[in-house]
């Protein structure tokens, strides 16, 4: 069993979806969440506020510096994520395929370094 981070990206330069599309998206994501939980794959997941709400903390010359975020100046930003348990990459990709449809954005699948304890 491995753990994977499924990050949902969205393009900041593209206009937000319509309220109807948003409502549909929340509904689809909740349905998917339920499926992940039922399958016993759920570890954690959630949607994030927009990147302009983020704060970056870093150590610089021994001082802790706090600055306004986001950290990467990219047009693609993380909108939310899941952490899931999966047998292997194929199982994780099967969830990611459903996630990209539900969230209407690309999903990046990354393995965690350590196998889950127990």
């Amino acid at each position, binding site marked *: 069993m*491995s753990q*994977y981070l499924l990050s949902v990206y969205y393009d900041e330069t593209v206009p937000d979806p319509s309220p109807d599309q948003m409502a549909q998206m929340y509904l689809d994501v909740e349905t998917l969440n339920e499926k992940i939980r039922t399958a016993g794959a759920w570890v954690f997941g959630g949607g994030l506020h927009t990147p302009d709400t983020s704060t970056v903390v870093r150590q610089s010359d021994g001082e802790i510096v706090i600055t306004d975020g986001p950290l990467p100046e990219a047009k693609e930003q993380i909108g939310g994520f899941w952490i899931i348990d999966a*047998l*292997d*990459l*194929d199982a994780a*990709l099967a969830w990611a395929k459903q996630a990209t449809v539900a969230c209407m954005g690309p999903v990046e699948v*990354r*393995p965690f*370094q350590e196998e889950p304890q127990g």
Partner: protein
Amino acid sequence: MLDTAGIETVFREESARAIASLVRRFGDIDLAEEAVQEAFMEAVRRWPADGPPPSPAGWIITTARNRAVDRLRRESLRTQRHLEAMTLEDDMAHQTHEIEDDRLRLIFTCCHPALATAAQVALTLRLIGGLTTPEIARAFLTPESTMAQRLVRAKRKIKAANIPYRVPAAAELSDRLKPVLAVGYLVFNEGFVATTGEQLTRDDLAVEGIRLARLLFDLMPDEPEVMGLLALMLLTHSRRAARVDSEGRLVRLADQDRRLWDRGLIEEGHELVRRCLRRNLPGPYQIQAAISAVHTDAEDAADTDWAQVLALYRQLRAFDPSPVIALNQAVALAEVAGPQSGLSQVESLDLEGYHLYHAIRADFLARLGREDEAIEAYERAIALTSNQAELNHLNAMLEIIRARPPHPTSRVSGDAPSSGNAGPIEGRRRR
């Protein structure tokens, strides 16, 4: 008595089975590769004196497996998984069928869609083809360090992301088969028309591609696209001796000396195409093989059933709408309906950066008596070509056009089929 070179050959043939078997058992490609390498060293020490074992394949797997277990003990990598693997009582080495399955599993791992195409190709040649890293690097004109790095990264990803060793379930098999077929075709095609370099064909890569396709066909005899891929390679390869003349110039299909074609490969390819037709589950590789079969069926260029070729290209485009297919179709169209029709079709294509686009356009323009435009198009094709044999051919064509007396009034009729002197220029399919 086997010398080191002989032992190398045996290992090259058998290493995929051994590596696949060990990967399945220990779930670790590096460990499997190292253990097979150690078994090779032991064979070099022992076989010349003792003679080769009765079953070299079985010996390699057993020896490599023992070496892997030794190594795990030595390095105290006794994680639970490895211990479990070691204590499994198995006699896999003696069950040929199981081992075949192991190789198929490993092929699907090497060609997993989560890996970049270049990594898929390198891994497949290394683990399934038994090529060394320097050999793969040379074949793809890549620095050895780059190729080594590519392999290390790919293997690290397989391990870290836990890419499975598994033959995909029936429902996803046709999707997962696509990159497997694409890797085989890419290896073959890189050998068929080397992207750069002096020689047009790099036979060893083409042969390696055929070897891969034969293995796939052995492992999946019921997949029509696998059959189609092998047939396409055999029929293409059958023409290799005729593709370059004594001066190193590419020879177009229409101008090739057909006596130089390999009849044995043609017969084998035609038989496979007939089997595909009986299965009646067409796919892009089968259709391309069928097109190749029509060409190799013709006594000479004029005897070619161009209407059939054109119909097959129409069918192919339904599977693959890429402009390169449309470009090849235009060549057949020009033979059936005249160069003006061919020209109209190519001019709608967005292939500015592709040398064959300009070469084919140049040929149509030349046949229409539009010399100035033909010269310009040949010059563009030449500027985009890096393969020496193709360059020689294009330069020769350019000279012929330039030597023509400039009589715009002597234009040939736009819609008369030509005498068939312009066959398709065989080239790499690009997507």
